[in-house]
């Protein structure tokens, strides 16, 4: 047993000090009839070598981004992670510590959180950031709930159909037991139309939730959305892609009141969906309604600048059922990853990564479907882009043969994770899939996928890897 200290002699000495005859006696407060009278029915223990062999074998059954060329996105992305991120975040002083309840011996974490909050404010153009939430989806939902609190409007929330469908599902789950109407504005052309939004928003609406770039990769008209929302006294929550802000105007500059994001792109592995971090920033006026931990600057008794957790009267351990949220922790280690990533990137690195995403995804779109318009076609004419709106790093491809499932399966056989099928969320897009191109993809890989897709369905397909 690798992590235990007590030798048989220790146990005896400790029991003697306690005045107990046996370890069993220490469990005497558990009524006998409630105790488990057999060993747990789980597999026997493994030593480190056995465990390593076993888990490595399970891992080897998976073929992820390192073994297949990854064009998958939809909220989780194969961006490059610099080695320094792993080196710093694998320091035990960071990952084996906890929430900084004792600021005097947690200045490392607290300063890192304060820096994270500053970096997120710089990134979003908004006034304040919290110390992070669970993920992009729960951050979007917490953003909406915060707006309901701020506006005191509980009756209605408007969400764009082009927001990540899983984020919308979570919102639906959270609102199921409240009397809040969730109105979805359609996005038939890949983006929402101002006229549709204008019809949906009224004086009861707490907020509008949009995503920009949206789930299809398309750019929404955020300024117009903001003015429609604000005209009715509603707030705007914008879900964003942090990498896109190397190039795109910031949520705060476009009129968003709350900005939320999935932070995985900023230096975290995809890890089949988590752990990630939820980013949230908002206007100064809402800070006392913000969910989650917040670090603030102060001084110690000697006058030294230092940092503490602050504004805790919002939180569950003080306010209990009146708290702004039930969230207890943040995603400390992953917020740290995001901070280290942004520090290494700097403004110019982030701009370069964003530009590479834009250039490569547009090159790919052209290779697959001949360009950015619905009428344009690739070599065979089989594929087209159903949406004409500008996109950032991902785009929807329509297979006119309507064989998305088979097409993607054949691409997988040939060594590509080619795209995310959209039928599960969008019945009208049953013949379409979402393709993502990050800075990690090369022209050769894009060309190879293009050839693979062109050949799919023909007798020769699927044989070469």
């Amino acid at each position, binding site marked *: 047993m690798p992590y235990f200290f007590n030798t048989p002699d220790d146990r005896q000495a400790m029991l003697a000090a306690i005045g107990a005859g046996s370890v069993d006696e220490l469990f005497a407060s558990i009524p006998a009839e409630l*105790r488990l009278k057999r*060993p747990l029915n*789980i597999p026997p223990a493994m030593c480190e070598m056995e465990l390593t062999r076993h888990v490595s074998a399970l891992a080897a059954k998976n*073929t992820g981004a390192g073994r297949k060329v990854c064009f998958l996105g939809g909220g989780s992305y194969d961006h490059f992670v610099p080695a*320094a991120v792993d080196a710093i975040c694998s320091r035990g002083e960071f990952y084996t510590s906890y929430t900084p309840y004792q600021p005097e011996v947690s200045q490392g974490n607290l300063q890192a959180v304060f820096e994270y909050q500053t970096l997120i404010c710089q990134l979003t153009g908004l006034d304040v950031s919290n110390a992070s939430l669970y993920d992009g989806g729960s951050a979007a939902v917490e953003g909406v709930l915060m707006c309901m609190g701020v506006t005191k409007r509980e009756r209605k929330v408007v969400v764009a159909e082009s927001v990540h469908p899983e984020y919308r599902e979570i919102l639906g789950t959270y609102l199921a037991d409240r009397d809040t109407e969730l109105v979805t504005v359609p996005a038939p052309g890949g983006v929402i139309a101002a006229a549709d939004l204008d019809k949906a928003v009224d004086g009861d609406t707490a907020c509008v939730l949009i995503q920009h770039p949206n789930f299809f990769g398309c750019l929404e008209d955020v300024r117009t959305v903001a003015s429609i929302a604000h005209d009715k006294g509603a707030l705007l929550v914008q879900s964003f892609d942090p990498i896109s802000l190397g190039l795109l105007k910031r949520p705060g500059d476009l009129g968003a009141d709350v900005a939320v994001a999935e932070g995985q792109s900023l230096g975290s592995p995809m890890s*089949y969906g988590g752990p990630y971090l939820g980013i949230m920033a908002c206007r100064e006026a809402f800070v006392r309604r913000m969910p989650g931990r917040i670090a603030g600057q102060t001084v110690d008794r000697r006058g*030294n600048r230092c940092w503490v957790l602050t504004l805790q009267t919002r939180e569950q351990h003080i306010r209990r059922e009146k708290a702004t949220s039930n969230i207890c*922790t943040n995603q400390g280690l992953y917020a740290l990853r995001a901070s280290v990533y942004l520090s290494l990137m*700097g403004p110019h690195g982030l701009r370069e990564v964003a530009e590479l995403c834009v*250039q490569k995804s547009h090159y790919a779109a052209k290779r697959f479907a001949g360009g950015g318009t619905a009428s344009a076609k690739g070599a065979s004419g089989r594929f087209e882009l159903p949406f004409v709106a500008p996109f950032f790093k991902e785009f929807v491809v329509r297979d006119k043969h309507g064989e998305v499932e088979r097409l993607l399966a054949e691409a997988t056989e040939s060594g590509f994770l080619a795209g995310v099928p959209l039928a599960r969320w969008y019945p009208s897009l049953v013949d379409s899939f979402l393709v993502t191109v990050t800075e990690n993809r090369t022209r050769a890989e894009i060309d190879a996928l293009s050839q693979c897709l062109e050949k799919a369905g023909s007798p020769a397909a699927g044989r070469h890897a």
Partner: protein
Amino acid sequence: MHNRQAVQLLFELSKPGRRALQCPPCDVPPAPVEELLGSDAVSSAPPPLPELAEPDVVRHYTNLSTRNMSVDTHFYPLGSCTMKYNAKRNERLAALPGLADLHPYQPESTIQGLLQLLYELQEMLAEIAGLPAVSLQPAAGAHGELTALMVAAAYFRHRGEPRRVVLAPDSAHGTNPASASMAGFAFETVRSSPDGTVDLDELRSKLDDRTAVLMITNPNTLGRFEPNIAQVAKLVHDRGALVYLDGANMNAILGVARPGDFGADMMHYNPHKTFSGPHGGGGPGAGPICVTDELAPFLPSPVVARSGDRFALDYDRPQSIGRVRSFFGNVGVLVRAYCYIRTHGPDGLRRVAEDAVLNANYLLSRVKSTIPVPHGDRCMHEFVASAERLKKDRGITAMDIAKRLLDYGFHAPTVYFPLTVREAMMIEPTETEGKETLDAFADALARIVDEAPELLHDAPHTTHVSRADEVRAARHAVLKWTRSD
């Protein structure tokens, strides 16, 4: 060893023109981005992030790390948080490319190994809980609480019962009432009896046809196993309500007693506590929940299903509450929990509980003569001492003792929780500490209470910073760096 670089902020270290990451040249024919994205969408300059060289960043954060106490460096008896050793093997295995490089929307045929691991984890968590149905989706313990309460709400909605009240004892974690509110329930507190356990008469008086769920922590936050838990569960069930177990203290009963066997209908685990996390400076955790067969149809979607030797995600769950988190959940944390459980096996998990309880009782026996432990001479995995008398007699508070412990090289216990004990100090040593460490900690406490009160009021004396002005932080909130500072 003064190190100025550690106390400067990234933004103060920044110098225009410095770079860390260099991107490769663009290998596709570029077009002007304003043309591709529309000039209205593109900003004239990138966001004003700091500009640093890679050695700057590495030195900065490495220095910052040395200003933390951590399990790797110090005894960390933070009650209720189970700060046990975090195995290095789990870190290495979770980082294997075959696990870390998987995209959440990969075809199931390409992730059979991972799905097998997650399926086996579901099975093991169900067996340890004594509750058959599992959702791995919640991202943290509090998120698990919220999810389970949503499951309960869906269950009662399905049955056409308008039950809208959640109960929990006054000793409960603050997340319990907060989760209840967030799930749309009204919340009511059940006062504890003087010995800190559930008062059956008080519970009886609170239970009625509006009661949906009793949330209970067992062992409770005083480190005591609720002696009447079976009666508590029966009272709740007789009124048609459900029992929710806050699994924060599972470390004490692994392989010894199972929540499903003592009447819980639903529970969450804190894998970052019980199954060695790690805690990550405040997360990520995970919050898998286990429920009875009756509640299983309402669990979040998807769950991992097995058919023969193939594993798949089951989305066909028409009564499910839906999603509570994007993608599958905190998979990296779940992989570590899997590694932890497989390392220990049935005997090892029981040994975890035994040594956690033995260590706590031993430490209690050493501490009680220094600082009274009001709720008895025996405990489970943790106990709560009270500095109330020290405060009255000598003006020494729980906070003073906590701060002075830092000087002695120990992280402080949880203080001022649970709310039911005055000047509370909640001490949880965990099983991954030896007798020598426990002795040294008890000795330090004994010395501290004999020290001059003034010395304690000003503690800590040896840390990088002394006591921080928390009032000023809240009153004049400075939540980010700005150039004028």
